[in-house]
């Protein structure tokens, strides 16, 4: 069950998957996919993690696109774990991604992990203005109607850790959508300094997206 919210007079839907949907524009927004993370670690002589997370992330992304019937998709940055990750993608995964992009208005926003230009279909932008909203990777102080990612916020409720959206009157921060992604506690100063008093944390990962007051201390 999704949760409706409004930002800069636009009506948005926070989905339990951690994706954001904008019904008026048929637009789906996801953040921090970190595709190719396990490959990047292996390349750097790190751990050999199970190399299935790209497939898992794409599977969930495809399910979201189908469920919402989205015609536009915005990936809010850090879509790839680094500039070489795109080349490192499995051929099947690469084709799958191309298939998802085909026929849709697809926008890649640059993140700190994938700042350079990427050789993949879709348009590549630093940020995007649509209606009353601005989409960028890292939130900027004083912004209005801003949708961003980057922080991978998470919160604890009822003895469990949840990925979460953070929302106040001025901005919305999306949780990480990628499979192998850690998180930053809501009560981290980086987040408490950014969001106004009265901000909400919208917990996802379960069957329902549910709002709680943003936890501001451990």
């Amino acid at each position: 069950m999704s949760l409706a919210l409004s930002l800069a007079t636009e009506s948005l839907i926070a989905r339990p998957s951690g994706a954001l949907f904008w019904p008026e524009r048929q637009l789906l927004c996801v953040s921090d996919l970190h595709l190719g993370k396990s490959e990047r670690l292996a390349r750097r002589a790190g751990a050999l993690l199970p190399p299935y997370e790209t497939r898992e992330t794409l599977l969930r992304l495809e399910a979201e696109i189908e469920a919402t019937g989205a015609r536009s998709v915005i990936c809010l940055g850090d879509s790839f774990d680094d500039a070489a990750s795109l080349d490192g993608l499995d051929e099947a995964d690469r084709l799958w991604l191309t298939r998802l992009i085909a026929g849709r208005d697809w926008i890649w926003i640059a993140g700190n992990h994938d700042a350079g230009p990427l050789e993949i279909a879709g348009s590549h932008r630093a940020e995007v203005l649509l209606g009353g909203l601005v989409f960028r990777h890292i939130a900027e102080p004083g912004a209005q109607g801003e949708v961003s990612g980057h922080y991978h916020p998470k919160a604890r409720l009822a003895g469990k850790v949840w990925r979460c959206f953070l929302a106040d009157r001025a901005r919305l921060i999306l949780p990480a959508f990628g499979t192998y992604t850690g998180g930053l506690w809501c009560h981290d100063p980086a987040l408490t300094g950014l969001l106004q008093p009265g901000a909400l944390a919208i917990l996802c990962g379960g069957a329902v997206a549910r709002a709680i007051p943003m936890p501001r201390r451990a």
Partner: protein
Amino acid sequence: MDTLPPALSQWFTEKGWSLHPHQWDMLARARDPATLLIAPTGGGKTLAGFLPTLAELTATPAKGLHTLYISPLKALAADIRRNLRTPIEGANLPIRVEDRTGDTTYTQRRRQRADPPHILLTTPESLALLLSYEDAPRIFAGLQRVILDELHALAESKRGDQMTLLLARLQSLSPGLRRVGLSATVEDPPALARFLAPDTGILLADPGPPPDIQMLETDTPPPWAGGGGRYAMVAILEQVKQHRTTLIFHNTRAQAELFFRDLWLANTEDLPIGIHHGSLSREQRERVEAAMVAGQLRAIVCTGSLDLGIDWGDVDLVIQVGAPKNVKRLVQRIGRANHRYNAPSKALLLPANRFEVVECKAALDAVRDGTLDGEPRGPGPRDVLCQHILLTACSGPFDAGQLYAEVITAGPYAALTRPAFDATLDFVATGGYALRAYDRWQRLKQTGGLWHLRDPRAAAVIRQNLGTIIDIETLKVRLKNRFGGTPLGEVEESFAATLTPGDTFLIGGQVVRYEGLREMTVEVTNQPGRDPKVAVFNGTKFATSTLLTQRILDIFQQERWSDLPAHTAQWLSLQREVSRLPDAETLLCESFPHDGREHLVVYGFAGRNAQQTLGLLLTKAMEEAGLAPLGFVATDYATLIWGIDAVEDAAPLFDLHALQDGLETWLAGNAVMKRTFRASAIIAGLIERSHQGRRKSGRQATFSSDILYDTLRKYDPDHLLLQITREEAMRGLIDFSRIEDLLARVSGRIETRRLPRLSPLSAPLFLEPGRIPVQGAGRERLAEDAARRLMEAAGLA
């Protein structure tokens, strides 16, 4: 026969010392390839182990490493160094002894590699590290003897499995190496002998007189539930006054803390009493150890950190607070009292609650009957082998066939097949993933027939992650002040996460107030006089042995309990009155509301692991029946499940076929399997340990092992690490056969008693640590309620 060098012999004579028969025997067997010495505490085991070394080095002085001594505890290595110094310096023997542990300085470790001492005292982890260096062949080439102290303790864990692999490695580097194992009394000496080496001679020392051991009965009866034995403070202080030095053992650190605080409140005569456990800072522990050795303390409140053979001087009484859980450990603890060989050890058991009165009674009977408990260990786990292969690769290129031949000389790995070994090697090299291995980025590569690290820089990371002990993540606790603050100890991260500023807890016997978290350090202030919020930080959790469990069930069958204290007999009678006592023929379940939740207790007496499996399978059945379970906790006797809805009749939940069907699907996603997976994934080198330093950098680089587990289950269900996880779980954590036995035994006689409130017998279960949450509909309902309350409180709903 006298094979002692004259200098040493003369020194012994001057001191008026004479050797025990088993110490002579060890000298006589000095040339044997492997010897296991089993002797009681205080029997001079360690000296017996070292005598041949002292004799050989005196007779034929040589340069280089002669003897390696390995103990499970760092402190033990330092202690032995001090003890060895006495005869070596006394008899002026030309022998250099050094220790090498995690605490040894970098410069000294460098020097030890360049110029090894005659005798090196170390731990399995430090030895693993030493063997991972390229110069290991040079260091160990001339090694003559290896002495494994406290072998009974090592053999019970993966540290022991790793140790046997390291021994195999040492034997290859120095083929003439002779092995000596030193052990306290064990139930199956031949099994321990096989663990040490294929052809091990066993030497049994005189076990000494039976111990003087009793239950400490007090005027105040023990409480209905709870741990710590604080009700008996006066009686214990009285015992402390009557003895020179008393060791007061506790089963958990938290209990030791609470007890220590109350002991000081009652200690009106200001008797010098200290506390020692693994959560205290090293400085604090060392201070207590020094005071103890100097004979300045009358009593020391301690946990398993004092279990192993460090010589604490003149202890003449051991008090075990709380049921001992395991007869073997009890016997070993009792041995700590009275270090004079052939004098009986004196010990008192203090049951912490009434259930433990029964447990203590069962343990006393078992000690008097001379029965020891122990579960045989299965074959060597392959996660440890993964780490061993990585370690071998760090030290230099290796041939797979040669390494395999070496590995199967280690006792626990004797039955390892070549295909199983090759699969393990493949996992280490490529990740072992079915569909897409990291061909380009594999960790190990084969060049000219030999395996080696693809990237030599990886060696540093591998070395950092050596070892088989998986720590629970802890945070340091410091007093908050302008000067950085005194370190007090550590608490579990999960405990720290539950604290809010103003909360109070106990550490090092002080009540402190939580002020906040700063750079991964818990800052506290002194708050004397306030009641502490109980510290739940980690302590070793012991499982009661099968032997004791059976004896307890037998005691329940008695018609009357005239051999038990009156209060306990009354308690059991009360249980019989309001519900009934469990027996072997019927499976008793109790269902009752308590503290706003519904509870179901299943008295299976099937052992902790089977009871835990039962908890997992039953909660799954309850989830399907819409009973919204929230979690459970298992002990050796019972499983306690809590949830939102009441269970009126538990019998339908016990359909064996449904349980069996449930087992496979259940393996998919439960917390116990994930916990097992995490430990194996760290040991096998799939994920790195999180280091204090790295965690400082806000954005965590650690991966959720739960997500890795789920991903592997989904895409690569036959992956080696999942096989290892299943083997691990089947061996220990699942124990499904005990459940089958149980259900066959009761054959449908499952009785559910619906009670208005918790029963006398169930009360102790509410204090068990290790609660396991169930992530299901019940949890969602709770989250829903919690979210609504928070929104209402914030005026947002």
